[in-house]
């Protein structure tokens, strides 16, 4: 547990929760990021303005963060083929499963949804299996 960062992680988590409450209070929307993203590519296209604004804010936060914290570390041994495979699984799975770590996790658990609790248990278990196999069997993405 050499890299344990309890204070920063707890404060960061609180900010994520506050941001989710803010979006619900001000826009009447659930801060499920996969749903916000997939909605941009829905047919027929819907309410793109608030979705685009939220995602723009998310990306702008990264640039602002780098300004004072420096650039993020780059991974050496994670090939682009793996990145594409992981992205496809995440995009497909969140669309079919109706949510991700934010929609089912932060927001769904916050409203005590059984669907979300099941989804969180399943994606956590699958994530643990995939991470252990990826690192200790495939030897990538360390």
């Amino acid at each position, binding site marked *: 547990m050499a*890299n344990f960062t309890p204070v920063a992680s707890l404060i960061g988590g609180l900010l994520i929760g506050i941001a989710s409450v803010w979006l619900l209070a001000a*826009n009447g929307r659930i801060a499920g990021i996969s749903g916000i993203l997939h909605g941009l590519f829905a047919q027929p296209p819907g309410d793109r303005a608030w979705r685009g604004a939220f995602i723009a804010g998310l990306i702008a936060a990264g640039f602002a963060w780098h300004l004072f914290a420096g650039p993020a570390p780059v991974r050496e041994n994670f090939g682009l083929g793996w990145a594409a495979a992981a992205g496809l699984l995440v995009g*497909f*799975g969140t669309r*079919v499963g109706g949510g991700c770590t*934010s929609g089912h996790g932060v927001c769904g658990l916050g409203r005590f949804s059984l669907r979300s609790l099941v989804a969180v248990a399943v994606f956590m278990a699958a994530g*643990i299996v995939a991470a252990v196999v990826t690192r200790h069997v495939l030897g990538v993405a360390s």
Partner: protein
Amino acid sequence: MTSAFGAGFLFGIGLWLSGMANPRKVLDFLDVAGDWDPSLLLVMGGAVAVTAMFFRPLLQRKEITFDKTAVDAPLVAGAALFGLGWGLGGYCPGPALTALSNLSSEALVFVAAMIAGGILGRISLRPAGSLAQR
């Protein structure tokens, strides 16, 4: 519009501060067979502590309801596939999007594939015969 941008910005800062935007830290949490880093439990715990306090009264006041309540096969299968991709790459959707600011090919490729995966997911969910009806 402004509030959506602000909420996204605050959400993104939370991801960076918490360590969620760093795929290596995410994998250090999911990889229970390695040098385990439990930090992400505190991220989820902190976030859910806030939403658990405010979500139900807000949803009630705004009369927002959810049409899907049953635990069904797409939910479980989708969550499983998402989890596999998360544990493979260390990115879930929010961190992947805010990591576009790294201007790394890794993040760009991941996000492009994630969007493509979402479109494939939508097509696979379309009820049989709905193409012909259009």
